[in-house]
């Protein structure tokens, strides 16, 4: 039987991984805050990455969306465009003819975009009037899709191709031409006068095969029919074709249009980016996700960089439902690649496991990172396929500021559930929560889309708390925790690393029915 039809037919059934008899009865609070329809006003670039059941299919396939919508500040969508890549099948320049949205006082809301035969739907949480987080909540007779993403206010039109100029650091994770995991990151130089990409350097992990080297020259160019209105163009990066959307001169969003499904942002590299170990100092938090021999994988942690040495490392790996905290780490080193500004390697080791990462810094405080640990040194075989972010931590203590702080929360990953289709599949959660002192007690409302059931759950109550140990940086060897209660579910426990009082990321800390990583962002 068509799985799409089955899951739609069962949409009234509430099934939640981790639920047992007597799950939480936490209720959502009344929405309070400063947001309104007027808070979403302008032209926003959005991205999501997740899965889709197309009509007639009984197996979900990976899905990436990158596009633009225009909000009128009154609840209407005036138009837009999106590019879709579903496991390598590309739908370019899909017109968004209209739509609607809602925004509650707490910044939560809905977004409906009218495309072709049927609308696509999203849950949104504003993190400011300039940006927010969203999850794909499309569930209709033609399509069932999920995924997590964000939206960012674009610069004022008209766009100019010359705005893309200088060196950009990128991280394009996704799927290769055979729909298997790939991590492609690096840096490239754009000649603002011509759009040429004369040079660049990359690190690629294609389903376990590590390759690194100079890029094949490429180019960026505008799409004649969509560039002026939406900042949309096409690019060739190291021989692979992409579509892109300009957010502003510092940020460009890319999505591949051949040889698989890669997507991500390229960030302009600042002129003061460290080029040697002498300029690389401070506390850094990192988060990576991807795949291992065992299944899905997350790595979160923090380290102190002091020139060429690494110290005070704390790391947590969740390998397909088996958690491995690393407390005793040694032999930490940092090296920089003199030929490629901002590129370097970090190594350290716990008693059971070596870690090696390559990183590309886009600024003093931010970069992308890829796990390049080899099965045996020199083999070129990666022990995992994983990448993510490296961010400078604020000075401790790191705790939510003020007595009650509003945050947008998003996680995505894999869940194992029973129900009609007892398999593992994607889950995405989007919530707005407040953290209240003194115990950082959480209260809020969430939408949860677990593809194992095909059942979208909206308006779930969120409870729980953040337990901050030590100064919150982890540099003192003390982990901080996050416990989330959802209506009808048993508590879900995470390890959480604060980057600053405004931003934190987290990953599952115990249990093997979820493999999730997520972000907590202060609402401004």
């Amino acid at each position, binding site marked *: 039987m068509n799985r799409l039809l089955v899951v739609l037919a069962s949409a009234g059934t509430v099934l939640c991984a981790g639920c047992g008899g007597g799950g939480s009865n936490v209720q959502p609070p009344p929405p309070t805050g400063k947001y309104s329809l007027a808070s979403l006003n302008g032209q926003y670039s959005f991205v999501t990455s997740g899965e889709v059941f197309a009509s007639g299919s009984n197996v979900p396939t990976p899905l990436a969306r990158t596009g633009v919508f225009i909000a009128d500040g009154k609840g209407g969508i005036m138009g837009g465009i999106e590019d879709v890549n579903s496991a390598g099948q590309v739908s370019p320049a899909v017109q968004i003819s209209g739509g609607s949205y809602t925004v509650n006082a707490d910044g939560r809301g809905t977004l409906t975009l009218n495309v072709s035969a049927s609308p696509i739907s999203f849950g949104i949480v504003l993190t400011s009037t300039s940006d927010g987080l969203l999850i794909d909540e499309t569930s209709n007779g033609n399509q069932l899709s999920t995924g997590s993403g964000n939206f960012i206010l674009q610069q004022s039109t008209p766009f100019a191709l010359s705005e893309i100029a200088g060196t950009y650091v990128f991280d394009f994770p996704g799927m290769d031409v055979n729909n*298997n995991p790939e991590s492609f990151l690096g840096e490239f130089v754009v000649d603002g006068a011509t759009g040429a990409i004369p040079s660049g350097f990359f690190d690629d992990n294609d389903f376990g095969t590590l390759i690194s080297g100079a890029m094949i020259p490429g180019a960026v160019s505008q799409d004649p029919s969509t560039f002026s209105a939406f900042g949309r163009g096409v690019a060739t990066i190291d021989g692979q074709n992409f579509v892109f959307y300009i957010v502003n001169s510092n940020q460009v969003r890319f999505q591949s249009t051949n040889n698989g499904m890669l997507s991500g942002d390229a960030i302009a590299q600042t002129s003061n980016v460290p080029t040697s170990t002498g300029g690389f100092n401070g506390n850094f938090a990192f*988060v990576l996700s991807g795949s291992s021999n065992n299944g899905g994988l997350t790595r979160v942690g923090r380290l102190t960089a002091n020139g060429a040495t690494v110290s005070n490392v704390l790391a947590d790996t969740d390998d397909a439902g088996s958690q491995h905290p690393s407390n005793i780490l040694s032999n930490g080193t940092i090296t920089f690649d003199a030929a490629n500004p901002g590129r370097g390697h970090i190594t350290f080791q716990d008693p059971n496991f070596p870690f090696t990462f390559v990183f590309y810094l886009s600024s003093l405080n931010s970069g992308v990172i890829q796990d390049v640990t080899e*099965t045996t040194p020199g083999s070129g075989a990666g022990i995992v396929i994983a990448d993510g972010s490296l961010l400078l931590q604020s000075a401790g203590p790191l705790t939510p500021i003020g007595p009650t702080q509003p945050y947008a929360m998003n996680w995505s990953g894999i869940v194992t559930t029973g129900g009609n289709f007892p398999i593992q599949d994607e889950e995405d959660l989007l919530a707005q929560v407040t953290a209240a002192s003194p115990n950082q007690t959480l209260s809020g409302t969430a939408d949860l889309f677990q593809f194992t059931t095909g059942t979208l759950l909206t308006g779930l109550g969120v409870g729980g708390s953040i337990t901050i140990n030590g100064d919150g940086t982890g540099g003192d060897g003390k982990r901080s925790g996050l416990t989330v209660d959802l209506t009808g579910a048993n508590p879900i426990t995470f390890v959480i690393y604060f980057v600053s009082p405004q931003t934190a990321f987290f990953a599952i800390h115990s249990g093997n029915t979820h493999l999730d990583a997520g972000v907590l962002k202060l609402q401004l």
Partner: protein
Amino acid sequence: MNPTIRLVVPSFILAGALSFCFSAGAQQSTQLDLRRLQSYELSRELSVVGTVIKYEPASSVAPMGVHLLLQTASGPLDVHLGNAKLLQASHLDLNPGDNVRVVGESLALGGGTYFAARIVQKGTQAVAVRNAKGFPFHSASALTPAQKESLRGVR
């Protein structure tokens, strides 16, 4: 790549592997053995034949994914088949009583070991569930590109 591969299991995979005993050997692994078993090596592969005792598409035991409890000549064997979506897409139904052959090897996870299958074969249908480096096909990433971007603090 077509996820469904019909093949004859290479002859170099020795039938002598039937004597492979997963549980006893694995539990006696030294720390060094566990380190060695953190990566998949084709040279260690074994071919095991058995009868399905239990098929769990969503096991509560790590690693996440499909687990097959197989009755072999040497006793029960817990086999990890990766992502159920791949078996579903390949129309490979596994049920108690089915006779199957699995090609794979023991891998370390969480201080223990399990048998990671690269190929599962029932009758004439064989499905590759891992690549030659041991990575499950179609495994999902836990963090989306957009989340990675939002964590980067670039706005």
